[in-house]
């Protein structure tokens, strides 16, 4: 190495470049787990204080924590893991982030370049394994490419439709010295240029449809959240300006406030009756940042048969994937909503949709989320409602695991703001909620972060309680404990002749003792009358809490669109007696 280059401040090792790039991208926290192939990077982390590293107990926990961090802040989540098992343990969170469009930058160590392909210790084909579960990935073989790749990685993860990326860095590249440069535009593939601004002619067509609508509905999704707080603001203005009813997918909750006058509740398989009926009977549908997922549409050939559909999405591959739409608009939700709002205000006036609202009121009167009150056992729906009441007035963030509790949380917890609701929607990852809560709490130290959990899901990533204790992250794990994998059991009851094959957990840990073993606080409640007091205690304590809320074991999640049925064939809780349920699933029963 020449005399001059050793004094060049941009000359540094690959490991130093990684930490420097994190700082240059404004990253304050990373989640990770050390191992042989990333030790040079950990050595650099040790010698600086710009980036705080959160040590998890399993790489999957790091991934979900980074997802929670990203989802609650709008910034990318960063993960650092070692080669081999470190990388393979990240496959679930990467896939989860890809499905839910969460920006993640995952840096993996790799065996030295000369050993790649040699079946070396802790070697795996990381870029091969993660290719289908990332937006893009890179193997960096030359230290002088590292800065460019790292900057491009952040750009790709956070722009367009956000998603996870992996940068695989062999250990010799971490040790090697090369030239670093700060982020610059030329770091990015010229072939990557996501479209942000919507086509003006399409926007005019959309406004004309909206202005002439008699039975309109706005259907929003996670794209509105991803687009940023401004998009939610514009959405609310558009609802105000048009007077249209609005529903949302699981991923989009909070973009429009649950207390808003035009809110229909969530739609889809476990959505409200009014939301699904409005989708089915509407004449104009405005879909914003949602993707007509199979949990939303029900039977696609009977999906909203008489409507003109407008679809705003930043990803052209979301257009016409499941449902053919009439006016596709490729662009960023916030940007396009702004344009639509402007044209609508200038050229259209609020359509008269009084009769439509009367129809919606009639559907609403069916009270599709009703459940029978019980003074002896806690019903899970009741538990969520009490939790919601107890957390009002607090700066609250909610994460969930996956299953019945997740659907009840979506139905009964009212979200007023975007970025407050972290759930695994697309992949449906049990074990997401606890580590996601960790990530949220790292980003929002003084806020109240609650993981609404199920007893089965939460045991999949329970080890992260140790992380919460280590970093004094007072996450609250509110477990709706029915001792079943509730959603699995529900499907077995409905579709598989009530044969509850392996959905009952015969050996349940004592969650109170478990919390204490980790150094947290355990609470347990059996009776509805004790719930409020315990919730107050949970909120008050500044430590991680496992709250074992024993709920009615056999409660099921309704309303529900049975498989193979359309939006207007929902099974409502009041009607979900044995005969009606059997009839609704009749097609299945014969073939069970």
């Amino acid at each position, binding site marked *: 190495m020449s005399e001059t280059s050793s004094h060049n401040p941009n000359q540094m090792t690959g490991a130093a470049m990684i930490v420097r790039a994190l700082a240059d991208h404004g990253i304050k926290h990373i989640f990770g787990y050390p191992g042989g192939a990333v030790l040079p990077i950990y050595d650099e982390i040790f010698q600086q204080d710009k980036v705080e590293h959160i040590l998890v107990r399993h790489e999957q926990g790091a991934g979900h924590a980074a997802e929670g961090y990203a989802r609650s802040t709008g910034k990318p989540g960063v993960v650092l893991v070692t080669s081999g098992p470190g990388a393979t343990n990240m496959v679930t969170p990467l896939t989860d982030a890809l499905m839910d469009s969460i920006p993640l930058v995952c840096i993996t160590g790799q065996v030295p370049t000369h050993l790649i392909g040699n079946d070396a210790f802790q070697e795996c084909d990381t*870029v*091969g394994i993660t*290719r*289908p579960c990332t*937006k*893009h990935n890179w*193997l960096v073989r030359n230290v002088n490419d590292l800065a460019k790749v790292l900057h491009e990685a952040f750009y*790709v993860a956070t722009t*367009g*439709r956000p998603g996870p990326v992996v940068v695989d860095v062999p250990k010799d590249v971490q040790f090697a010295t090369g030239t670093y440069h700060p982020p610059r535009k030329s770091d990015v*593939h*010229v*072939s*990557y240029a996501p479209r942000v601004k919507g086509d003006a002619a399409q926007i005019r067509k959309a406004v004309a449809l909206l202005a002439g609508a008699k039975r309109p509905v706005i259907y929003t999704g996670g794209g509105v959240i991803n687009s940023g707080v401004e998009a939610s603001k514009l959405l609310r203005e558009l609802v105000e300006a048009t007077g249209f009813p609005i529903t949302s997918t699981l991923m989009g909750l909070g973009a429009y406030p649950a207390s808003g006058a035009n809110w229909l509740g969530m739609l889809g398989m476990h959505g409200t009756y009014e939301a699904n009926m409005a989708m089915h009977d509407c004449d104009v549908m405005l879909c914003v940042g949602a993707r007509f997922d*199979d949990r939303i*549409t*029900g*039977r*696609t*050939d009977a999906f909203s048969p008489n409507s003109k559909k407008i679809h705003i999405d930043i*990803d*052209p*591959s979301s*257009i*016409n*994937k499941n449902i*053919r739409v009439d006016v596709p608009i490729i662009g960023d939700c916030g940007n396009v909503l702004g344009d639509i709002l402007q044209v609508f205000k200038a050229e259209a006036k609020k359509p008269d949709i009084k009769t439509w609202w009367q129809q919606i009121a009639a559907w609403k009167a069916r009270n599709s989320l009703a459940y029978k009150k019980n003074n002896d056992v806690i019903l899970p729906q009741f538990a969520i409602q009490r939790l919601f009441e107890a957390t009002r007035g607090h700066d609250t963030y909610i994460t969930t695991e996956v299953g019945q509790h997740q659907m009840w949380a979506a139905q009964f917890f009212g979200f007023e703001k975007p970025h407050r609701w972290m759930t695994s929607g697309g992949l449906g990852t049990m074990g997401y909620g606890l580590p996601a809560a960790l990530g949220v709490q790292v980003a929002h130290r003084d806020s109240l972060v609650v993981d609404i959990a199920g007893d089965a899901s939460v045991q999949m990533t329970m080890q992260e309680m140790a992380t919460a204790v280590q970093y004094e992250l007072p996450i609250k794990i509110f477990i709706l404990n029915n001792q079943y994998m509730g959603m699995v059991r529900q*499907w077995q009851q409905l*579709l*598989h002749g009530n044969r509850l094959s392996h959905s009952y957990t015969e050996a349940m840990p004592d969650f109170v003792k478990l919390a204490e073993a980790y150094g947290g606080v355990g609470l347990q409640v059996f009776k509805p009358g004790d719930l409020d007091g315990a919730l107050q205690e949970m909120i008050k304590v500044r430590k991680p809490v496992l709250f074992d809320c024993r709920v009615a074991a056999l409660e099921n999640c309704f309303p529900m669109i049975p*498989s*193979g049925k359309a939006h207007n064939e929902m099974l409502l809780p009041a009607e979900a007696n044995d005969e009606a349920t059997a009839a609704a*699933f*009749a*097609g*299945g*029963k*014969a*073939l*069970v």
Partner: protein
Amino acid sequence: MNQPASAYFLEDRHDPNETHTLSVLVANEPGVLARVIGLFSGRGYNIESLTVSETESQKHVSRITIVTTGTPMVIQQIKHQLDRMIPVYRVVDMTLTGRAIERELAMVKVRGGGDNRVETLRLADAFRARVIDATTESFVFEITGNSSKISQFIDLMRPLGLVEVSRTGVAAIGRGPEGM
């Protein structure tokens, strides 16, 4: 519509399949072909033929020609899914442009003697196949053309002593002065 017990909605789709030829310009970098092929296998799309080579070495651009079949909705998905890959510059549906020329090259080995040998040469001449290797008991022909012409030639060679075939897959380019 009754369906077997499933947490998923099962539907029959009856749209007819179409065959399309797609030209894809990509950055020639490690793993790019694996990405494209992985997309097809991962999402259950068909590949009838795939041809890849670097076409602009200075710009590190490769051209991938893919012949695929699917319903119109699936074909549209394939194009969008390809187009959103980071190293993909452009995707052009050569079938939709209606102005594309498609060619394939094949090398065909035929073994035999006597009258068959004469007949083989006569047919090769009719198909404008060139002899690029010959022994006293065999020929290797080089033939270029669209895929159906090549398939037809191969079929004719079968009773005359066809040994083996190597085909390049389809390459396509648009007519007229414009590039893709």
